[in-house]
């Protein structure tokens, strides 16, 4: 059976998706719902290819890393499949780890221009109506390094909570004095002070 091919291009990068339509869902001939292979071609760099189960985590890695790059000073992404880090915000070191045994990791160095080309290719794939949406686990499986970044937001709550605890504990503390306060005695005292 002839497989369908769809390509997404952005300057020096192209992403090719190979697969078949799901005929059981009466899909069009040019649709790709069963992805068998994908290839990421970057000019002057080795070809990156893999199975469908690798594409989601790799897309996640690039999306999370680019978000960290814009919001953080020194972003790092580490996972079982891919590591991305930068030395100076200009060059990004990518280490792709093969799932096959005895295969050395592939190391690539790309700049910001290629990084944005890659992400724009992934955006085109996500927005394409001809390819089944790639399942990503961005919200579910954040690597440990990314979780540290979210911890920074937790610091905001750490900043707010102590004054609140202080105010509420003061209220709680002062409310205990209500037991010692006798309004009748207080009224008598007032009469003694102001006999008129």
């Amino acid at each position, binding site marked *: 059976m002839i497989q369908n091919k769809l390509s997404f291009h952005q*300057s020096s990068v192209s992403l090719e998706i190979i697969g078949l339509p799901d005929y059981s869902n009466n899909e069009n001939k040019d649709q790709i719902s069963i992805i068998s292979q994908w290839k990421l071609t970057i000019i002057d760099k080795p070809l990156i290819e893999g199975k469908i189960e690798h594409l989601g985590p790799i897309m996640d890695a690039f999306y999370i890393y*680019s*978000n960290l*790059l*814009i*919001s953080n*000073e020194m972003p790092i992404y580490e996972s079982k499949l891919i590591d991305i880090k930068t030395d100076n*915000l*200009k*060059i990004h070191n990518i280490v792709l780890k093969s799932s096959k045994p005895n295969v050395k990791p592939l190391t690539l160095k790309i*700049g*910001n*221009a290629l*990084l*944005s*080309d890659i*992400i*724009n290719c992934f*955006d*085109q794939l*996500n*927005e394409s109506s001809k390819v089944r949406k790639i399942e990503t686990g961005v919200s579910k499986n954040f690597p440990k390094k990314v979780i540290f970044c979210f911890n920074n937001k937790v610091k905001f709550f750490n900043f707010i909570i102590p004054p609140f605890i202080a105010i509420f504990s003061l209220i709680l503390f002062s409310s205990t004095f209500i037991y010692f306060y006798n309004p009748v005695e207080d009224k008598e005292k007032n009469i003694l002070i102001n006999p008129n």
Partner: protein
Amino acid sequence: MHSLYAISKRLNLNEVLPNKVTIWKLRNNNPLRKSYVNNNIKLEEFDALIKITVELSRYLYPYIREILQSKEDLEKNLVIWNDFNNRFIELIKDRFNIDSMRVKKLLNHTENDEFIIKSLLTLSLCISNQGSQKLKNFLFDF
């Protein structure tokens, strides 16, 4: 100003941005500008500015990419990065309040690199159809 207005017309934003004066007034909301005026920006005006920025980024993507690339290999492409940086500084000096500490940082050749790279990268990542939403997310996270 003219190009911003032309893009707003092309994107059918006439109701929100009916003329150049509206855009000029919105531009003056930037507290770093010399002619800063504190007007409240409406949500639809904010959305319109985002749409215009994304459309401009799409159009200018090859140039943005070239400038980013020139910073990666300074020995080869020193001219492009320096030209852009000099023009950026010229515009800042011309239009921004140079007494402000934040503006002074933008004017410093050694300190403004990171700001320029991150700004260009943000624009280059927002050229897709969902670019407006992406740019909003980046701005809210800034």
